[in-house]
C-alpha cells in the first residue's frame, strides 16, 4: 500500500518581491532584538543588584520538628509516664533551640494520642528533666550529653540526639543527614530498656542499629 507523495502547495511567491521580504525581515529582527534586549537588560540590571548568591532554603529544623511529632505518634510510652488521662505529652528542648518555633506551631495545632502537646524549655542541659521526648542537639558538648543521658535513663522517656556517639551513650534515636535528607537511626535495645514500644511503621523508615 503506497501513498504517493503530493508536491507541496506553492505559496504565492510571485508577489513577494525582495522589497517586501526585506521589510518583513527587518521587522522580525527588530522584534527579536527588542525582546532580547529587554530580557538581557532587565536580567543584568537585577543581577547587579543581587550580589549575594540566592538564599538557599534550609528546612532542617522544620523537618526535625516534624520528626519529633511523628515519634509521638508511632511510639507507645509506659503508662506510668502519664499521671492521668488529661496529662499533656511533653517534649523537652533547650532554650533557643532553632526547632522551637516549629515545635510551638505543632503544639498549637496538633495532639499526640489525644493529649495536648507541651513544649518545655530548659536553660541548660543540666537543668533537663524527664520528658516523653527529650531532644539534645549536636551543639551540646559531649560531657553534658552523657551526663543527661546517664541521669535520665530508665525514666521512660525517648532520648533523641544528633552527635556521632549518641546511641553509644545510651540514646534511643539519632538524626543523621544523608544525601541531603534527614534520616533516623534507632537503637531498639535502648527503647526496650525504657519500656517504649516502637511501631513497625517507624522501624521501617529508620535504620535500625541493633
Amino acid at each position, binding site marked *: 500500500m503506497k501513498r504517493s507523495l503530493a508536491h507541496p502547495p506553492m505559496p504565492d511567491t510571485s508577489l*513577494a518581491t525582495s522589497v517586501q521580504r526585506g521589510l518583513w525581515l527587518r521587522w522580525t529582527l527588530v522584534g527579536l532584538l527588542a525582546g532580547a534586549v529587554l530580557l538581557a537588560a532587565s536580567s543584568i540590571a537585577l543581577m547587579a543588584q543581587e550580589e549575594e548568591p540566592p538564599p538557599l532554603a*534550609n*528546612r532542617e529544623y522544620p523537618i526535625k520538628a516534624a520528626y519529633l511529632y511523628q515519634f509521638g505518634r508511632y511510639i507507645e510510652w509506659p503508662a506510668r509516664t502519664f499521671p492521668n488521662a488529661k496529662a499533656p505529652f511533653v517534649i523537652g528542648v533547650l532554650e533557643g533551640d532553632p526547632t522551637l518555633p516549629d515545635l510551638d506551631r505543632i503544639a498549637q495545632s496538633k495532639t499526640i494520642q489525644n493529649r495536648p502537646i507541651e513544649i518545655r524549655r530548659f536553660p541548660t542541659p543540666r537543668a533537663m528533666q524527664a520528658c516523653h521526648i527529650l531532644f539534645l542537639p549536636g551543639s551540646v558538648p559531649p560531657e553534658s550529653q552523657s551526663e543527661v543521658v546517664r541521669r535520665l535513663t530508665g525514666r521512660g522517656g525517648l532520648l533523641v540526639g544528633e552527635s556521632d556517639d549518641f546511641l553509644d551513650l545510651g540514646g534511643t534515636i539519632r538524626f543523621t543527614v544523608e544525601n*541531603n535528607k534527614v534520616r533516623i537511626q534507632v537503637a531498639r535495645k535502648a527503647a526496650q530498656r525504657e519500656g517504649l514500644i516502637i511501631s513497625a511503621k517507624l522501624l521501617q523508615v529508620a535504620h535500625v542499629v541493633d
Partner: protein
Amino acid sequence: MMGDRWAGDGSRMAAALIGAILISLAAHVSVGQQTSADQTASPPQVDKPTDAKDILNLDLEQLANTPVTVPAGTSMAAEVTSVSRTAEPIARTPAAVYVVTNEMIRRCGARNVPEVLRTVPGVDVAQINASTWAISIRGFNGRFANKLLVQIDGVAIYSPLHSGVFWERDPVMLEDVERIEVIRGPGGSLWGNNAVNGVINIITKSSKDTKGVYADVGGGTEHRQFSNLRVGGQSGDVAYRVWGSNADDNCGYVPNPGDRAVDSYRYAQGGFRADWTPTREDTITCQGDFVDGRSGYQGYTAMMEQFTPSDFSRRTLMSRWAHQTDPDTDWAVQAYYYEPYGDSEQVRECNTNFDVDFQYHAKRNRHDIVWGCGYRNDNEELLFNLTSGGWQPPSPGITNLDTEKIPSYFFQDTITLVEDRLFFTAGSKFDHNNITNFEYQPSAKLAYTPDERTSWWGAITRAVRTPSLKERANTHEDLDSETLLSYEIGYRRQATERCFWELAVFYNRYNNLIATATMSAQGYANVGDADTYGFEYNTTYQVAPGWRLTGSYSFFIECLTVPMPYMYEFPAGANPRNMFYFQSGWDLGHDVTFDLMFRYVDSLAMGVQKYFVGDIRVAWRPTRRFEMSVVGQNLFDGRHYEFYDALGVKATEVKPGVYGMVSWRY
C-alpha cells in the same frame, strides 16, 4: 496582495511589540504594589512542599525523602519521572528535560496537547491542517514523525502501521493534566523502541487531586466550541473521577478559488479514573477512556472532487499497581489495552495493543538501580476499498503485517561517585521483536552538580527505530532498524533567586535510515544516513512576584544523504533552522492575569514561509470557583502555512482566531 500584507503585518507586529513593552513597564509599576494572591505564577513545582508549614504536615516516608537544602523558589528542585522512570530532581537529571505544569498549561491558552507543545523549547509543532499535526524533536518532522515516543499515563499512543502518532485520536482533558514532561534526546534506554529523538510523557492528576466538580464551556472562531465536565469524589480508600469532553474545530484556509476546505475536526470523549490506596504502601490505579470523532484530514478538495470525512474512535483501559516497600525500595506493575480505529472511504484500520510492564527500583548505598521487563502485543487489521471489489485485506504475500510481539527488559544504575556532586548512570533496554529480532539501546551519562545552583550533564546514547508495518509490507528485503548514536551535553544554572537558564547541545549520527524508491518497484530499504546537530536554550525570569518572563531559542542543522533513486518520506527541509519563543505573564490587580506569547518558526526548505505569531490570554478570576478568559491565537501574522502536503494529507493555512471560555470549580 502579498506585498501589502507583509508591510501591513510588519508594522502591526512592531506596534504590538512596542505596546507589549509599554504595558510591561506600566504593569511593573503597578504590580510592584500588589501582594501575591494565589494567582502568582509560581515556578514549576510538583507536589513537594517548600514551605516550612507544609513540612510539619508530612508523614514519615515523606519526611525521609524531603531534601534539606534547596535553592529558594526555583525549578532545580522540581522532580521529573520520565528520565529514570523514578522521581529525581531536575538538577541531577542527565538529559534535556522540560516540565510543563498544569498552571503553565492554563496560562498559555492551549486547547489541546499540540498547542501546549508549541511552548516547549526544541519541539517543532507544525499544524498541517485543522485536524492533523506534524510534531517532532530535533528533526525528521512529518505527519507521522516516527522518532518520538508519546505516552499518556504510560500508554504509548502510537500507530504501529505508520510508526507515528495520530494526535487527533488522543485528545486529553487539559484541566486534569498534572504535568507534561518532554525529554529532548533519546530515551530509548528505559522507554524502549522509537524514543529516538524524544519522549513526551503526559501525566494526569491522581483522583485524590481532582475531587469535586469542574466544568467549562467555550467557543470562538477556530476552536468553534468545546466543553469539559468532571465529577470527582472519594469513598473510603478509593478516590475516583468521571469526566466527559467535546470539541469542534473549524477548517483551515485554502487560497485557491474552487478549492473547498474540509479539514474540520470534532470529537466527544469520556473517561474515568480510580485510585485505591488499600494500605499506606500500595496504590492501585485503574483508568479508561473512549473517544469518538470525525476528522477531515484530507484538508481540502479541488473542484469536482468528492470528499468523505474519516471517522476515528479509540478505547483505552489501563491499570497500575505501585508498591512502596520502604523509602528506598519500590516497584510497580502496569497493564494496558489500547485500541484505536480509523475508518475512511478507502482504508479501515483497526489496531489492538496490549502491554504489560514491570519495574523495580532500589537505592542501596551508592547505587540507585531501576530494572524491569515488559511485553507488548500489537495487532493490526487493515482493509482497503481501493478497487471496485469492495473491502479487501492487503494483498497476500505481505508477511508479518498482522502482529508484533515484543518482549523487552531494561536495567539502569545511577552510581554516586562523589556524594551530592557526581553521578554516573549506565543502562540499556533490550528487546526481542519478531521483526528485527534482537535490539539493544545502551546509554552512559554523567551528571555533575558542583553546588545546588549549577549542574552539568553529558550523555552518549544509542537508540533504534524499528520499521513500521507499512515499511515492512513494502520492501523486497528484510528491513533493519534505524540507528542513532547521540552525543549530548547540557548546563543548568539558577543564576539568581529569580533567574534560571539552561542550555543543551547535541550531535546525532543516524545510520540505516529507511527511504523509499517510489519510481521503481523497490520499495523501502535501509539506505540513508544523517548527521544533525544543534542546541536549545531556555530561561525563566521572575521579574517581580506578579511578572514572569519565559524564553527559549533552538537551533538545528541537518545533513541527510540518501543514494539515488531513493528518497525520504520526510524530506530534508521539513525542519526549521531557528525557533524562538517568548512569554510574559502578569498577575495584574483585581484577579486579572494577562499572558502575551510570541513564537517565531523559521521557513521550511520545502516551500513553507517563516512565521512570527503571537498569542494573548486575558483571564479574570473573581472567586476561587469561577474564571472567565479570552484567548487570541496565531495573531499578528495573518494566515500562514505551517507545513506542506504530506502523505495524502493536504495542508491548509492556519488562521488567527479568538475564543472565550468560562469555567467553574466546586
